[in-house]
């Protein structure tokens, strides 16, 4: 039984770390394309950002640690870690590589201050979870590995539920205007979707409530029959692909899909605990 459980967690690790690697490579490559932002005349120049309070690095090395070359070095480390994570399981590099990606997440969030998004947050969650699961499998400690699964699935359930709850208290989401408003922007919108939505307020309201409802009901995936749970996760994956297409949120796809193997393991554990299997 324990061996079977470990095999399930190992399969979860293989899928999760592959998607983590995809996100790490994509996010690092996109930051590389933005290295000019870190120069002295860039939007993230250290000449200005060093003025903010609560800096953690000692003043004597602060400038070097936050220089453009240091950012490049951190991104190279993230790329190397992402590539090494693609080595098939069992891979002794999984633990150090996921920890390296986690540290790079901490560094980039401190260094950039502005410009981070939900994909960075979920990438950090996945890196932490993969590190714990890898440690559990390396030490042959199933409970340790399961705590990593708990971390990822717990944050995934919270992420979807909170996203829905924050929308349901918002009048612009409830009346459907949020969809048209966002689609009308060039930053996150889509011209065809905006012109389609502009003439169909009922459709906008339906899409907004569909988003609110499905996000808030995400925790029920843990209780649903296996077929329904898998079908639901496929629908959520489609939701992320459509967000990538219409809103340009390409980096959200990989870390959010990376939570699904852990969610399915949590689903099995919950149904076992309820005596439904």
């Amino acid at each position, binding site marked *: 039984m324990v061996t079977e459980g470990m095999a399930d967690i190992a399969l979860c690790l293989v899928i999760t770390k592959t998607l983590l690697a995809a996100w790490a490579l994509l996010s690092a490559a*996109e930051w590389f394309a933005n290295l000019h932002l870190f120069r002295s005349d860039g939007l993230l120049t250290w000449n200005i950002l060093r003025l903010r309070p609560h800096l953690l690095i000692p003043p004597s090395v602060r400038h070097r640690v936050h220089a453009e070359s240091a950012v490049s070095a951190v991104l190279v480390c993230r790329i190397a870690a992402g590539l090494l994570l693609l080595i098939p399981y069992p891979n002794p590099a999984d633990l150090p590589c996921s920890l390296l990606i986690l540290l790079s997440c901490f560094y980039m969030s401190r260094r950039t201050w502005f*410009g981070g998004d939900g994909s960075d947050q979920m990438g950090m969650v996945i890196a932490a979870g993969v590190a714990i699961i890898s440690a559990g499998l390396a030490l042959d400690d199933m409970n340790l590995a399961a705590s990593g699964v708990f971390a990822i699935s717990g944050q995934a359930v919270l992420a979807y539920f909170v996203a829905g709850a924050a929308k349901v208290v918002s009048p612009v989401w409830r009346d459907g205007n949020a969809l048209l408003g966002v689609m009308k922007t060039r930053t996150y919108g889509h011209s065809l979707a905006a012109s389609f939505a502009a003439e169909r307020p009922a459709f906008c309201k339906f899409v907004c409530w569909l988003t609110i409802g499905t996000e808030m009901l995400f925790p029920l995936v843990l209780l649903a029959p296996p077929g329904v749970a898998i079908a639901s996760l496929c629908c959520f994956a489609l939701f992320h692909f459509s967000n990538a297409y219409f809103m340009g949120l390409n980096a959200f796809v990989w870390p959010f899909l990376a939570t699904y193997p852990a969610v399915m393991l949590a689903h099995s554990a919950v149904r076992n605990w309820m005596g439904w299997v």
Partner: protein
Amino acid sequence: MSLVSILLYSVVTLWLVITLLAQHSRFQSVINRFNGLHIIPRWTFFAPNPGVRDYHLVIRERYRDGRLTDWKSVPVYPARPKLAYLWNPQKRASKILTDAIQAIKLLLKRDDVGLSGLPFTVPYLLLLHYAAHAVPAEPDAAEFQIAIIESTGHLERELECSFLSSFHSRW
């Protein structure tokens, strides 16, 4: 169950509970104080108030004799690429601009900052510094001023100036 497992389960449970609390504005100021590494995520995507405006930065200069130049657009990020669903690095610069402008709006509402304290804040200085370097100075220009323009729409654009800075020395 090993001691390490019990410890990790406790830490993960605490992490999830704090994450849940952090989504409510009542607890955010307290949690943010200990969230220097951003280990507590915020999951309120595009809610409660979704971004329904594009932000633009513009700059103009004042010559020594008092004449003003036309407003010029400060290039922050190019248009979204057609394959943005695969590759979209431009989103970082647009998100930085959005975050900085949102921070400026919040600082303007604070009693201890307001309009008089704003020029001494990091988001303001960041945009001012960037605009001053992104657009070359006109010969004989002595001072410059930036403005934040908000827009909506794809073909027919509605524009609104939401913030106008004071004049600052060019040199």
